[in-house]
């Protein structure tokens, strides 16, 4: 199961090794701390800058989908637009509503942003990445993304505004419903890779799990879209319905933090999907692992953007229905199927899974997915698309032909 030795572009071990050599033996932990701090600093900065660039990218891509130009005034091709946005946010007055809970009000955007950064600590960026080797990685991901919910509720509650509260309640209901299918999909991944560490998930992923467990992939992407409140599940920021939802009362830099977190979420989710389902930094040839990882994350990001540009949004009760009556049974089915296959196919002595086992699982899972989709189509599509033929009402007519 050793992965192909892909040449790492940036040698992670380098920093650790450097500091390790510098410090005396007893201060080993200090070397790890300092090296980790430097790497974390670099990653957080890279994440924030890439979020800023992603805002530009999303606006221009949405413009292209909608036959218009996106931002194109500031800088060549509008590349300095994020800087203009930041200047705008900084120059706005930072209002706190009268009677609002001040500490919670200030803390909410910070919590929202911090969870995003935390998740990124677990994404392996290369084959010798030592920072992401937490042995309970997947559980950590699920736990930290749940704190999102808390941040939204804090924002809505502390604003002392009934519309914000309304939006926050709906948001919380949606988010906690979608955590269950997400966790179950991750559980299936954990079973197939036989460990909870994200690093091991990638090294054990000779065959991308998207091919092995297409149902889990679909469930995870749908649940993660809902967690990020992106279309078609973006009811909590539906401007046409609710003013502005949970961030109505925010302005200035606090609002900028909300926007940062909102635009960081797709990037993080794409990285997680690339790690868990598309086999992370694995690739072929002379191209280093980091580039493969970025390419895969970009593909997922562009797909999420495409969905956002095309589909309208669902209503609150339809979203809950989709979660509890749609995704939850599917994720249970998926978990059950994967667990059964692993139990049957794995080596009875070592308990390991080989490549050919994975391909066998892939074949069975695709068959199951196909059957499930056909069954769902049979049950729902006929009900959905069935409409009676229009008949002219006898109440008034002009004797003209019917359509």
């Amino acid at each position, binding site marked *: 199961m050793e992965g192909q030795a892909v040449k790492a572009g940036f040698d992670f071990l380098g920093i650790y090794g450097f500091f390790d050599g510098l410090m005396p033996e007893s201060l080993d932990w200090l070397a790890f701390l300092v090296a980790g701090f430097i790497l974390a600093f670099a990653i957080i900065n890279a994440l924030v800058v890439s979020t800023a660039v992603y805002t530009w990218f999303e606006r221009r891509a949405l413009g292209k989908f909608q036959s218009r130009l996106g931002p194109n005034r500031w800088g060549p091709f509008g590349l300095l637009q994020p800087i203009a946005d930041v200047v705008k946010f900084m120059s706005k007055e930072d209002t706190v509503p009268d009677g609002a809970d001040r500490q919670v009000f200030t803390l909410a955007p910070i919590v929202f942003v911090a969870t995003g950064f935390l998740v990124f600590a677990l994404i392996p960026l290369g084959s010798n990445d030592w920072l992401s080797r937490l042995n309970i990685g997947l559980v950590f991901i699920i736990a930290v993304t749940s704190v999102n919910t808390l941040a939204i509720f804090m924002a809505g509650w502390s604003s002392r505004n009934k519309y914000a509260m309304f939006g926050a309640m709906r948001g919380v209901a949606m988010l906690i419903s979608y955590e269950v299918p997400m966790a179950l999909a991750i559980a299936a991944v954990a079973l197939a890779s036989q460990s909870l560490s994200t690093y091991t998930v990638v090294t054990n992923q000779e065959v991308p799990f998207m091919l092995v467990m297409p149902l889990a992939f679909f469930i995870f992407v749908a649940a993660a879209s809902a967690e990020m409140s992106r*279309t078609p599940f973006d009811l909590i920021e539906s401007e046409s319905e609710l003013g502005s939802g949970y961030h109505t009362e925010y302005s200035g830099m606090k609002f900028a933090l909300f926007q940062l977190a909102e635009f960081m979420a797709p990037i993080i989710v794409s990285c997680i999907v690339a790690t868990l389902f598309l086999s992370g930094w694995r690739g072929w040839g002379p191209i280093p692992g980091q580039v493969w990882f970025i390419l895969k994350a970009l593909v997922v990001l562009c797909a999420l953007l495409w969905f956002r540009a095309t*589909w309208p949004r669902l209503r*609150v009760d339809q979203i809950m229905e989709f979660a509890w009556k749609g995704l939850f049974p599917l994720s249970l089915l998926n978990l059950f199927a994967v667990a059964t296959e692993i139990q049957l196919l794995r080596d009875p002595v070592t308990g390991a899974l080989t490549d050919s086992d994975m391909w066998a699982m892939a074949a069975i899972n695709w068959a199951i997915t196909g059957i499930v989709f056909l069954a769902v189509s049979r049950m729902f599509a006929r009900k959905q698309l069935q409409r009676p033929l229009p008949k002219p009402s006898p109440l008034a007519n002009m004797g003209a032909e019917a359509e």
Partner: protein
Amino acid sequence: MFRLRVTFDGEVVLDVEPVFGYLHRGTEKLAEERTYVQVVTLTDRLDYVSAMTNNLAYVRAVEKLAGIEVPERAKYLRVISSELQRIASHLIATGFLLQELGAFATPLMYCFRERERILELFEMLCGARITVSYMRPGGVLQDAPEDFWPALDELVKAMPQYIEELEGLITSNEIVLARTKDVGVLTAEKAINASVTGPMLRATGVQWDLRKADPHEVYDRVEFDVPIGAIGDTYDRYLVRVQEMRQSLRIIEQCVKQIPKGDIRSRTAYFIRPPVGDAYGAVESPKGELGFYLVSDGGIAPYRCKIRSPSFINLTVLRDLLAGWKMADLIIIFGSTDIVLGEVDR
């Protein structure tokens, strides 16, 4: 500019009270101080999304009142501009319905892009895109320039493919179906009792179109169908509007083939003085039946001009339509009634 006071129970709508009047400009009173030709410029601004049909309704009323004949070519030009205006107005209705559904402006931008082509045609005809003032009692103002006819042909060829694309994006989309199917059902009896007209009425299954019931201009010489819906929900209203766009294209094609050469405006006085009396002229505007009731006392200005605006009357069924639905549906049902505040408030 429209306020809806809604009483909620959790998320369910209990009662609805529309408050409007924010756009009231006193059109009916102003019309008493303007001559009959000057009032045409006032009528542009009623339903600002479909100005040609407003002009046509008013000018029909004046012609009935004063007994003015309209030459053939003018009639064909009037029908062509009305149908083009119908397509433009339905594009806006569809685009905004989807914007309220939350499709993040993509279908809205597509609809506006196509509407731009129609507005360019209007610019060729009469110099302005939206406030056209194109019709006059006795005909139309100006003949179409030579580059109008090739541009119109191009539009008529390109539009069906574009409407197909729009339908592909929306009609069978499961999310749209889930949101709009069986939402906001209006029964045929309720619609007729409330004198609702236009696509809202036709979506309930009643086949009533003023272009066939009371044909004016050349509507009796062109063939077209009147699309109706089955149930009267939001999805039906959307479907009826899209099919009406197709039928309008059919009418335009036939008019372009049939249009004769000739005069475009019969000679009338600058200041028309109709005999004492009254007249009611109505057309099928994209929103419903738009009617003008003019009373004349023999002078150069109407004594009274009463406007029967379809959006105002379609509004009156809102309480029945909305009761019992959730907040998200409220926005969609309201969007599908397609009211324009300029008409409601006059």
